[in-house]
Each structure stands twice: as C-alpha cells, then as structure tokens.
C-alpha cells in the first residue's frame, strides 16, 4: 500500500491529470520514435533532423501547435453536430482504455474485476466515432472508408477477444492486476524464478493478438479504411486542424494502450523478478514502459514492412486463419488447464 492516504477527490484529480497527460505524451513518443525515426531509418533516411536542435525531437509537438492554430473547417453539406463530435468519441474511447491499465501494484485508475473485458468493449467504441465521421462528412470517400473501417474492426474484434480468452483461462481472472499477479507468481515446471510470462504458453495467442490489434489500429497492412492512395485518407478526408489532431492522437494513443494490454497479458506487465512492494510502484511504470515499447516496436515494424492487403484478403485472413487459430488456442489452453 501507499505510505500516505489521499482523499477521494485528491486521488481522482491526480488520476485525471495523469491520464490526460499520458495520452498526448504517449502519442508523441510513439509517433516520434516509430513513425518519424524508425520508419525513416528502415527506408535508409534520417527523418526530421532540424526542429528542436537534436534529431528533430520537436517535430511532432510543432505539428500539434500548427494543427491547433488552423481554421476549423466544416463542409457545407456536412451534418455539423455529428461531424464535430465524431473525433471526440474516437478520442474518448482511447481515454477509457487507460482506466484499467495497471502500471504498478497500486498505480491504476480503477482495477475492475472485468478489466480486460471492459478494455476490449470500450476499444470498439471507436467504430461508432469512425462511422459518424464518415457519414457526417457528406463525402463518398469518407463513407466508403468508414464502412470499410466498420467491417474491418468488427471482423478483427473477434480474434482479439478469442486470443485474450486463452490468457483469461490460464490466469483464471479477467482483472488485469490479477493477470499480472498470476504471471508474476507463476512457475515454469516448478521453477518460479522469472514467474511465468504467458508469452511462453500463449505464444500463438500473442501473435494473433498483435495481428488483430494491428487491424484494430487500421495500420498497414490493414489500412484499407484510410488507404490514402484509393480513398484519400478515408473517414478523415474532410477533417482538418484540431479535429484531425484528435484522430491522430487517438490512433497513437490506442496503439500505446493496445501495446500496454499486450505487454500486460503476455509479458507480465509492470512486474519484474525480485521486486516487491513499494519499489514495484516506483519501477513499475518504467518496466511497463519498456515492455510497451517492445510490443509497439513489433507492431510498427510490421506496419513499415508490409504492403496493404486487398479487401477480400483482409476478411479472409480474419475469418479463415486468425479465428480458427484462436479457437484452437482456446481448446488447447482449456484441455491443458483441466489436465494440469
């Protein structure tokens, strides 16, 4: 437990401030490290080098300032209210994700008993925002893009959930804190040295989870909803200024949150061997951060390597490969859980 007690409103204020500042920070860090720098080096470029003096670290912050200064354009034919509120809904679904992410034994906004269930439920809220954005834009490309997004997000929600079921069966709990503790206290053939990160037993689930979250983020190779060469950025076509910034922040904020969920489910979350009690509260965020960067590296590595799927290949990949594999994973996990 913490050494000091905070009253309800103090802790609520603190949690609100932390979550509100973590999401833009996470978006900027992921955007800078992976989108600007890693992609550049993978293409034998340098990326931004001038803004801020040192390797262009200020680039994305400067971009953000630019977006805020821009005029807020709403097309004449657009459904003004729905158009205006759609990016907020997308961003709020990202904010809601951060509520259950544990960064230490006591560092969590609210440790829900149905934590992972809640996380997957609110992450799919963004589909509604995307559909609203596409429909309200009064633009055929936006509409096509948003319908593609809806079809894709619904198709890939299934393997995402089914991959998580394997972890839930093995841990015996849906609480993210419970899953972290189950991994930290676990044993590999009676040896409890490093706990039992579920990456070892649920490797197939991890692969499915990463592939499906890639699709949930509408990143290449699953970026048909925003395919800039065919659909002119899909549902984001008509957005500019800070509303576009909301979509951008939501995309990278969600990437960070899904990486955090993957790190929690499969890599042991904030736990690190031989660290207990209050020290875990201090080290936890850094350990979790390192694991998040590892998972995010995998996601963005694939994003910058593979070309876009065709629309039918996308659906076939979800329904014919990922879902049967994840069902197989559940059966195997269940049988082994009962057997041992």
């Amino acid at each position, binding site marked *: 437990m913490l050494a000091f007690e905070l009253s309800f409103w103090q802790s609520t204020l603190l949690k609100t401030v932390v979550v509100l500042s973590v999401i833009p920070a996470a978006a900027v860090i992921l955007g800078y490290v992976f989108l600007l720098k890693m992609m550049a*080096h993978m293409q034998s470029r*340098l990326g931004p080098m001038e803004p801020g003096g040192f390797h262009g670290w200020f680039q994305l912050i400067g971009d953000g300032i630019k977006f805020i200064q821009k005029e807020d354009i709403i097309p004449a034919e657009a459904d003004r209210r729905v158009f205006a509120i759609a990016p907020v809904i997308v961003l709020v679904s990202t904010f809601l994700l951060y509520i259950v992410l544990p960064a230490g034994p006591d560092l969590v906004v609210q440790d829900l008993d149905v934590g992972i269930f809640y996380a997957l439920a609110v992450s799919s809220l963004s589909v509604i925002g995307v559909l609203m954005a596409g429909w309200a834009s009064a633009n055929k490309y936006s509409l096509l893009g948003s319908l593609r997004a809806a079809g894709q997000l619904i198709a890939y929600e299934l393997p995402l959930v089914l991959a998580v079921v394997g972890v839930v069966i093995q841990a015996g709990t849906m609480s993210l804190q419970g899953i972290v503790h189950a991994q930290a206290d676990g044993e590999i053939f009676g040896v409890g040295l490093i706990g039992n990160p579920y990456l070892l037993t649920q490797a197939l689930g991890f692969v499915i989870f990463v592939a499906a979250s890639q699709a949930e983020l509408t990143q290449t190779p699953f970026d048909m909803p925003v395919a800039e060469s065919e659909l002119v950025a899909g549902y984001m076509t008509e957005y500019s200024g800070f509303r576009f910034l909301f979509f951008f922040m939501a995309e990278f904020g969600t990437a960070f949150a899904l990486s955090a969920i993957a790190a929690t489910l499969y890599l042991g979350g904030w736990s690190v061997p031989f660290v207990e009690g209050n020290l875990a509260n201090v080290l936890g965020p850094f350990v979790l951060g390192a694991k998040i960067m590892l998972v995010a590296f995998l996601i963005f*590595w694939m994003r910058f*390597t593979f070309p876009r799927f065709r629309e039918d290949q996308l659906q076939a990949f979800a329904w014919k490969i990922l879902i049967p594999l994840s069902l197989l994973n559940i059966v195997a996990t269940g049988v082994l859980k009962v057997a041992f």
Partner: protein
Amino acid sequence: MPKIPGQGLVKGLGVTFKTMLQPAVTVQYPKEREEPVGRARGVIALKEENCTACMLCARECPDWCIYIEGHKEKRPPRREGGKPRTVNALDRFDIDYALCMYCGICVEVCPFDALFWSPEFEYSEVRIADLLHDKDKLGEWMEGVPEPQPLEAGAVKKK
C-alpha cells in the same frame, strides 16, 4: 527447399531490420557536402577562346536563354603580303539560368568545343534576375570540367 507459408513475410521483416541498423544514405547538405561526380551536369561552362560567336547554340536553344553579341575584327594575314583576316570577337555571352532547362543541346551543337557541362551546382540566387550569368562567370566554371575521356582503341583523332 520447400516453401514455408509466411517465409516471404519474415524475409521482408529482415530486410527492413537490416536497413534500420545500417547508416542512412541521406546527406545533410548544408552541414555536410557530397562531391558530385566529375561528369555531373550541374551547369554549362564556357571556354571563351574556343567561341567564334557563330550563334549556333543561341539558335538551337529551345528556351532562347543564350545571349551572344560580337563584332568583326581584322587580324594580320597568315602569309606575308596576304589580305588581313576577318574574325568574330565575342563581346557578350550570357546564359539566363532562370530560363535554361538543362537540355544540353547547346553543348551538343557547339562545333568548336566551347561549351561544356560542369559539375558545379551551388549558384542559387535570391533574386531571379541574378541568374543571368555573363561570360566571366561561365568561364570560372570551366575549372571543374574534367579532361575528356581517352579515345577508344583504334579511333583516329581529326587534325
């Protein structure tokens, strides 16, 4: 070797990972400078003593960006008691690089080898009118022009 499904995907990941670890090919131009290759087509240089102001280049130029002015001069006769020779002397040879499209036709058509491609490329100006360069400037660029390549085996040089 039998094909494993997903083999190509892994190979692709390997390519991007390897590229990431290698230094980038980008040259940070104003801070570091890469020497262009000798025969790079950066700018057109003029070897003034070869020019006879024959106007062929100016007439072939698709953009009409070459300005030539000259006058007739008498020179002493080649043989004792002969008639004085008449030659064309060059007064002005300007190329307007704001118009030039670097097609190189002037270099091709020059019958006296007075025009050359030079690898020099740092001659940008703030004002567009300053891109009109005279024959002194064009002559300075001759420094960077490499010697012509040796003739092929068996080729005979014209006298």
